[in-house]
């Protein structure tokens, strides 16, 4: 599937979803429109523009040939890193309430510094602790943000 067609699916799916659930909303009358009018109009527009882009993407895929395939390959090859970062961040969010901000953020920073920034283990650990503790102090003590404590007393 080309990037254009993949993108158009996002709009088409949102359009279908919007349409299916909008028709269940009160539509009102022309002189007194209900809460369903705005989303159903948008859903239809999303369907129209999504379809237009899908059709255009089909034509471009035929024209693109090798170039399009190479671009797609590079895109898929590069996909692992952002997905890993999102996965690590998702783990941090899940761990947030259990282990608290201080530990979760320090571990999160350590993994990213080691793996994305490519620092040595000792440097990553030192920076993670410094930034983790520093940010905790800044947010929790100076800005008085209610951060999850986890099992720690602070």
């Amino acid at each position, binding site marked *: 599937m080309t990037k254009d067609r993949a993108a158009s699916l996002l709009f088409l799916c949102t359009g279908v979803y919007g349409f299916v659930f909008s028709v269940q909303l009160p539509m009102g009358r022309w002189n007194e429109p209900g809460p369903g009018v705005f989303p159903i109009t948008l859903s239809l527009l999303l369907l129209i523009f999504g379809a237009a*882009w899908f059709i255009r993407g089909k034509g471009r895929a035929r024209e693109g040939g090798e170039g399009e395939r190479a671009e797609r390959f590079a895109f898929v090859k590069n996909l692992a890193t952002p997905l890993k970062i999102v996965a690590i961040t998702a783990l941090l969010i899940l761990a947030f309430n259990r282990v608290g901000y201080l530990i979760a953020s320090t571990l999160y920073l350590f993994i990213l510094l080691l793996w994305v920034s490519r620092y040595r283990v000792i440097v990553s650990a030192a920076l993670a602790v410094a930034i983790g503790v520093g940010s905790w102090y800044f947010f929790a003590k100076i800005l008085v943000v209610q951060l999850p404590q986890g099992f720690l007393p602070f």
Partner: protein
Amino acid sequence: MEVFNPLLNGFMNSLSLVNLVACFTGALVGTIIGVLPGLGPTVTLALMLPFTFKFGPTAGLIMMAGVWYGAMYGGSTTSILVNIPGEAASVVTCIDGYQMCKKGRSGAALALVAIGSFVAGTIGIVGLQFFAPLLGKAALAFGPPEYLAVMILAFVLLSNLSGEHPIKGAAMTFLGLFVSSIGMNPLDSYPRFTFGSEKLLMGIDFLPLAMGLFGVSEILNIAIEKHPDQEYRKIRFRELYPTREETRRSVGPILRGSVLGFFVGLLPGPCNVLSTFISYAVEKKVSKTPEEFGKGAVEGVVGPESANNSAVMGAMIPLLTLGIPFAAPSAVMLAGLRMHNVEPGPMLFTNTPEMFWTFIAAMYIGNLMLLILNLPLVGLFGRIAVIRPAIIMPPISLICLIGVYSVRNSMFDVWIMIISGLIGYFLRKWKFPIAPFIIGVVLAPTMENSVRQSLMLFKGNPLLIVGRPVAMTLLAVAIAFILYQIVSSLLGKKIEFQGEEPG
């Protein structure tokens, strides 16, 4: 027109410690983050939004404006020193700025850009101070049909100017408007697409969406891109002095860029990016030595940089007078103001004029602060400019997470940010413009109200809009623009703006 007394009062208010601290912090942080490659004014503003809560609405607005034009200035540093634009509006600065650096004139280029930005900022504020109250007064006569027409025209222009294809821009606009329709509807509080979830009842908050689409997606982008190590060349203070010839050649471009940028800033779309391209073209056209452009012409550096700083002030006018943002950074500003329970629009000048005038006065002070800050700290900014983006990525991602969490202490918002960050990453890679989406999100409630109120006003007959000349004219311009695009596309003379998405 009475201007000086309210302005004087504004100066009295803005010289309070809180406002001065807000102004200084905004300008400094804006410049520092703006210096970092890839992180432009929109990301910086989104990152700083949660922190403005610590200040009141006036100080928050001052801080955000300081961040905005601090980031605009910061973008030029990397362009001149390392040939990497800090944000889209600094792409043009790379052409001659880096050539000046190679000739050993980087200090002079940075100093002239700082002075140019100061002059442009000041001219922009004067324009804002005079035009905003006038337009605000005129906008008092606007009803729902006029607001609707302004928004339709803005979306048409935005869809066309923001990306590589109008269909992409339009689809992103509709997606933004649709996402914002999740939750209770603004007129009769009817729940939509909530599936019984209490969290969705209040809708999807703007901040996590903006942080995700601009901040997180940029972080993901930074993580995969190869950034070669840049060499830092130390700049001594005495190198900041431009020669008499360089100064003489800069006066005209700075003044032209300032006036041009201000008026381009009034247009919907990536106005600051557009202003730099237009300014560069104008300077090359009026120059007696156009052959020097591309080889280190000082006019090609100071003109566009002045234009983009002045455009920031121009873009404030539709935001403050109509409450309608025409560009992504103004959309973030609007969301920030709403978070402080301030609704910009014509009533701002009648209900809270002191806020407007304090803001104007603080802009003068902030502009001066930025100049004082920029010249001696050029060396520091130069060092920041060569930091590998992968190194600053982890702390920035942590700031995004905590920033979003701290606003409502909500993990739901953090999840929204991550998901929208991933979607934003794909959309950027597929070259879909983010600005129309984000402006759609922020304007959706106003647009829905305008649509429904207009239909009620016209008793269900939309053709009655012919009786509203302002709305009719605006709609006619929008329709003419769409027709022009279709016709020129069919004739194979499609005009495409190839500017990058402002970050």
